[in-house]
Structure formats: C-alpha cells, structure tokens
C-alpha cells in the first residue's frame, strides 16, 4: 500500500519535472514592444502590423520574403522570412512573426497573419468616419 504511493509519487514527480523542463526550453514569449524584441537574443513571437507604405520584397533566388513591421508605438523593423509570402498576407490586420532579431533584421521562421474580422472592420471604419 505504502509502496504504491511512493512509486506513483516518483513517477508523477519525474513526469512533471520533464514537462516543466521541456516547457521552459520550448517556451516562446509574445512581445509587442519592438525595443524589447531588438534587444533580446532569444526566439520571440513579435506581434505588430505590416507597414503597407513600404511594400514587401520577394527574393526568388534566396527564397526569402522581406517586409517591414511596426509595433503600436510606430517603431519599425525589417522582417526577413525564409519562405514564400503567406496566403493572406495583403489582407492581414496584424502579424505574428516567430524568430530572432539579428544584425539589424528580424529573421522569422514562421509568420501568422491575422485577418480582419467583421468586428475589427466595424471598429476601424468607425474610427475613420
């Protein structure tokens, strides 16, 4: 009876330990302040929006896709993504890029585009009118 609980307890501790270890190792934080993004050398999920005025470039030979992103305060950074332009890019309301800031550019390995929903449409249009 006692052995059972000790045995079970050890397994539970090992399991939880493993989970916490892996969680911290594979953990990525969200960051909407680009000053912090630029000063960190960790992999980060940076959230912001596409600077439409600056368009984007597709480099066919190196298979990269580059564009400018800005945060809420208007601070901009160049994002270089190794891959092709995502499906919904032009209509994206906000963008989440996962990667690291290195040598003046944000090197993204993943892009998530959030498309405007009807609710956001409303707010935007309301703000404009």
């Amino acid at each position, binding site marked *: 009876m006692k052995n059972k609980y000790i045995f079970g307890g050890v397994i539970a501790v090992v399991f939880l330990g493993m989970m916490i270890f892996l969680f911290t190792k594979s*953990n990525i*934080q969200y960051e909407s302040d680009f000053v912090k993004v630029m000063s960190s050398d960790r992999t980060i999920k940076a959230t912001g929006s596409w600077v439409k005025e600056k368009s984007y470039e597709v480099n066919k030979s190196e298979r990269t896709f580059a564009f400018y992103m800005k945060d809420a305060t208007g601070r901009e950074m160049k994002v270089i993504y190794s891959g092709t332009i995502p499906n919904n890019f*032009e209509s994206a309301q906000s963008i989440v890029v996962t990667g690291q800031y290195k040598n003046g550019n944000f090197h993204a390995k993943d892009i998530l585009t959030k498309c405007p929903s*009807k609710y956001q449409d409303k707010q935007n249009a309301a703000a404009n*009118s």
Partner: protein
Amino acid sequence: MAGSILTTLALALSIFSMVMYFFTYRGAKNTLNIARMSYHAMAMLVIIASAFLMYLIITHQYQYEYVYSYSNDDLPFGFLLSTFWAGQQGSFMLWLFVTALIGVFLQSYTGKRDDLEPRVMMFFTLATTFLLAMVSPLLKNPFAYIWAEPMFLEVAKINPAYFNAPFMQNFMFNDPNSGQNFVKMSKDLYATLQGSGISVNQFIIHGKGLNPLLQNFWMQIHPPILFTGFAMTTVPFSFAMAALLKNDYKDWVRQSFPWILAGSGILGLGIMLGGYWAYGVLGWGGYWAWDPVENASLVPWLISLAAIHTMIVQRKTQSKGGFGKFVKTNLLLSILAYVMVLYSTFLTRSGVLGDASVHSFVDPGAIVYLFLIIFVATFLVLGVGMIIYRWKYLESQIVDEENLLARELALFTATVTLGASALIVAVGTSAPIFKQSVETRFYNEMHVPLAIIIGLLNGFSFLLKWRHSSGEDILKKSKFSLIATGVFALLIILFGKVYDIMMILLSISAAFALFVNAEIAYKIFTGNKKMLGAYISHIGFSLFLLGVVGSAAYSKQFEVDLTKGKPVNVLGHTLEFTGYNPIENNTKYEFNVSIKDLDGGEARVIKPIMFISTFNNSLMREPDILEGFTKDFYVTPLSYEDGSNAENKPQGNAVILMPNEKTSIEGAQLTYTDFIKPDMSVMMGGGNFQMGAKLTVTKNGKTETIEALMKKEAQGVTFVPVELKDADLRVELTKIDPTTKKAELIVGKLSAPVSTTQPQEVLAINASTKPFISLVWIGVAIAVIGFFVSTLRRLKESWA
C-alpha cells in the same frame, strides 16, 4: 424576430424542464410528465429554430447579420449548408441542436431505467440551458438583425438603385486606407429605409460570402461530427453527477458506458476528419499541427479514453460486490471530459488565443467572455464540488487488493498515461493565456515516451488476466507476438533505415500491440464476435502509431522551381510542369505537374490549385497529393510566374508624390500638379472609371504635361504608361489613393535595355513525401469501427 422568439421560448422551457426534473428528483409526484413534455417542446423549438436559420441562409435573407456575414448568392447549396456553422453564432446553434437531439434519446434511455431519468436529465437540461442562453438575443444570437449593431457594409453589397437616394449621403463613408466606400448600416438607416418604404432585403442584395478555406466538402461534415462528439460528452457528465447525487456508484458505469464509447468514437472521427482536411485541402502539409483549435478538441477525447479504461476495471471488479475499483477516478474523468469541452470552447471563442492560432478568432465582447467563464466555472465547481462532498464516503468504499501482474493495474496505467497526455496538451494550449507559448516540439518530445508506454500497454495488458496472472503464462501467450515484433524490428532497421532509437522503440511497441491484438482478435473472430470491439480499436490505434512514425519522423520536403517543359528530379521522382488551365468559371487555376518514378513507370498528373480569392483578395493555394499505400507524394504550389513580367515590368525608380510635390529623377524635374478625379457615382456603383495624376515633366529646358492614369474596366485595373520620346522617359502609375491623392509612380529611361531572355513559365512548389501516412487514416477508421462495435455490446449490457 421569429428566430429570437423561438430561442427565447426554448430557453424558458429548458429552465422549466430542469426545475421540474429537480422537483421529481425531490419526490414530487406529478412533475415527471411535465418535465418530459417541456423537454420535448424545447427540443422541438430548437429544431424549428435551426431549420429557420437554415431557411434564412438558403433564401439569402441579408437583413440578418449572420446570413450577410457568412454567405452570398453565388454559393451552391452544399456551401450554404456550411454557412450554418461557419460563424460563432451558428456553431453554437449547431452544438445546441445536436445536444437537444441527443437529449431526446437520453430521456428515453434513462426513462426506462429505474429512477435514473430525473437525476440525469436535470444536469443535462442545465447544459442545454447554458447553450440556449448562449444563442439567446442577449449573447451570440444567430438571428440578430444587421442594424442591431452599427455595421459598415461594402458599397458593392447595396442595391445600386438606391445610390442616388437623397438620404444615402448621411450614411456613406470612405476608408482612406483602402479607398473603399462603405454604407453604415444602423438603426438610423433602418428607420430611414422604413420611412421610405424600402425593405432591408431590397436594400442589401449581396452577402460577404464564405471564406474560401471553408468552401469544401470537409467543412460540410467535419463540424457536425465534431460537435456531435462534443455534445456526447454531456451524457457521461450527467451520469456521473446523477451517481454522486444518489451516492450510489454501482449502476452508473454500465449505464454510461455505451454513451462514452459512442461519443469517443464520434469525437475521434471528427478530429481525424479535421486532420484530413488540413492535410488534403488546406495544405498545412500535415494532419496535425498542434494548433490550439485542434488541441482543444483533443483534450476531452483523451480524457474520455482515459475514463473508458478505468471504467472497464470498475465494472469488472463489481462482481465481488461493492462499487468496484477506481470509482473516484471514473467520476472525475467523466466530469472533466465535459468541463474540458467547455474550457476548449472558452479558449477558442473568447479571443484569448488571438495571436496563437491559424484559425481566425474573434473577440466576442466582454459579456460573452464573462458568460463563457461562468459556463466553465459552473460545471467545474458543480462536478468537482460533488466529488469532494462525497469524498469521505467514497474513500470508505475502497477495495484494496493489488497485484502487479493483473490487467487492472495495466488498465489503470493506461488511464494515467492518457491523462498525462491530456495534461501536456492542455498545459501547452493554455500557455497563451499567460502570454506564453510553446513550440510544437514540446508536444512532440513529451509524447514520444508516452506513446511508447501506450504501445507496450496496448499489447501487454491483453496478455494479462484479471486479478492475477503468472509470468510463465504471459510468456507462453506472447510467443507469436514477440517473434513477429522481432522480425518487424529487423525489417524496419534493415530496409526502412530507421536508426533513431526512440523511433525504433515506438515502432516496436506499436507493432507488438498490433500483433497481440491481431492474434487475439483472430481467435475471437471464430468465437464470440461482439467481444471484438476493443481489439479492433487497439489494432487501429497501433496502425495509427506506425503511420505517425512514418509520416512525421521520416517525411522529407523540398522547395523547387519547375520551369515549364523541363523535368526536374525531386525526392526520387521526375517532376515536370506542363502548364495550367482555368477551372470553375475561370476563378481558379490548376497547375499540371506530371510525376514519374525515377525507375520509369507511367507518368501521373497531379493538379495543385492556386487562385486569388475575391473574399479576402489573397492568393489561395490548394495542394494535390499522389496517394499511395507506402507513401504520399505531396505538392503545395507556392507561386507562378508566366515570364511575361520580366519584359513588361516597368523598369526604373519608384517615386511617391503628393499633389504639388516635386522631385528630380533621371535628370528630369517631375511635378504632380493635379489629381484626376474619378466619377464618384460610377465608382461606387462598380462601373468603369479612370483616375490618375496630372504631371509636368521638365528635361533639357523642355516642359511637357502628361496624365498618368489608372483605368478600371470590367476585366480589372490597368495602368497606362506614358512614353516621352524627347525626354527619353517612361512614366507609369502603380498606385493612386483617391482620398489622400497620393500617387506612386515608376519612372525609367525609355532607352533602358530590355531583358532579351525568352519568357519562361515557372511554377514554384513545395514537394514532400509522407511515408505510410495511409496508415494514419486506415488506423483511425479501424479504431472508430471498434468503438461502435463496443458500443453495441455495452448497450446490451447496460440493462443487466
């Protein structure tokens, strides 16, 4: 209005039914029939309301916000069906509809079994009450009118006959960012329209349409099946609560058993259909991305599976008298499965996962957010509270008799392992609430050891007898499986080139389980066939695991440019792009790629699709797959260039000018003197128009005035380049904003060398191989069949 009345009435009836069931449970004599009748009346109203919503969608009643937002006239009937559950309001409605229907069967099932009905149905009606409150006019009402909340509608959706109506000016708005015009639909406009004798349905003549990602067959079947699975978890929850209420835990296991089995089968099927959708149509490249929405449906399923395993033990150990073993575990898991469905709903509907998922989430507003929290909390507190309340009594009923080599312990370990898996997924998925997130390797790396344990248990536990078995006996019974597994291991290492130790272990454990189950299933097949269910499911699961190892760990991918007519060797195949052709009324394009094996054989053609969707003005890509038993060859189109661009693309410098702004470029002085206005009324009506910039160009002392124009015609937008021979300049507009009047131009030398290369059509693709992915689908299909075979058997036993 009619729809809102229906749901509101149903809500009242649901509450009334719940109260009547409660009185019946407390011993009232005449209330049972009233409770039943009000339940049936409620279910009937829900069915009518659902049918009404469907009717509104099919007949394009755009005065309803939901119909406007998720459908349009062009959708064929099948996709209009999908519109029903394309948005939040409708998917809650679907969930409610299925739950209400299940309740009808549950009422009849429980009504025939002693005093079960009032206890079970009062919890079940609590669930329907919450769902009805969700779709009530106060929260996510699918029957809300479009003017209830101010909403901006694109001009193109409005009947052009009313453009010149005098009242329109007050409701037109322009969005300077996009240059688009909107009509503000609000109570004011509604009143104005009413005053002019115009019905809203005459005024709004088009809907926004359905997201192209949702326009396919899988959207028609995946959500209904998934929501049926979700709704089914309400039943084991209600049985567990009913048992706790009565403080009698003997009968509930066998009564609840067929429901939890059928529910898990359906939910599993729904999850996998979603996986196939993501793989085959959406082009995610795989069937599982650990996306929060996928995870959210996985957690309740894992918990249900965990519950099933210890419920078997409880049932089996009841033969010695008493309630049997693991009563608390079973109660807790049955309750948690439903609570996790609700928690998933909270995660995916409240907007907390906003940045974390590919699925688009909508912030539903503070009231809905709060209601979702109350929904989850109510059932969690009620469920866990009842267990705590009964804890002492439950503790006193424990039968303690342990044997290491008994099937009981093996099944309990299975439950713990499945629970651990659910915990991992739940923790990872919840991370975004705390502004954290995990990489998918968190899930993958945690699950490899768990899957190995599950595989071993899956085989081993069937070799064990109940209560006690001898080591010798096990060895004797496992002879075939051990030898077969050994041979299998050699084969995959020698021929499959599987060298990763974890993957070898995982394959071996899955194969071991496969052989054990297959051997027993074969024996049973010649005997009592209704006992087959469990073995079928476990065979399916073993095949699934093998498919996962092959397709996930040994998938290879490669990005490649295919020039038309030039074969390229990719991943053991020769690929050649042979051209494209339009499909579906020229709205989409098929890109034909012929595939040949390197060692010859017949060429086969696959046709990935790309198109620009008018719904969101984005490039959409659909993969195509060369399917085979041993491997799939998967091709996602990335981009296509017809080669003409290289010649016609304006060469030169990009210039952005505001009116009256000057710049010097290519030795010339450029001034943007005037904006050429479009005809506003034509523009709003979607007719042909032109606009542009009037410019003066001064070079070598000579000044010319030119007009750089953008023309909108039926075929689309064209920019007319202006060539100045004397100044050796070429000026072309690339973009112009009618509100800010900002003009973007390309200015280049006319004499600049034009590239002389022949235009080449190039299709860029992402090609990948997925070894044995077929086993994933076959495995799940077999497992699901097993669930239903077991359901039938346990349904018969539920009377005993």
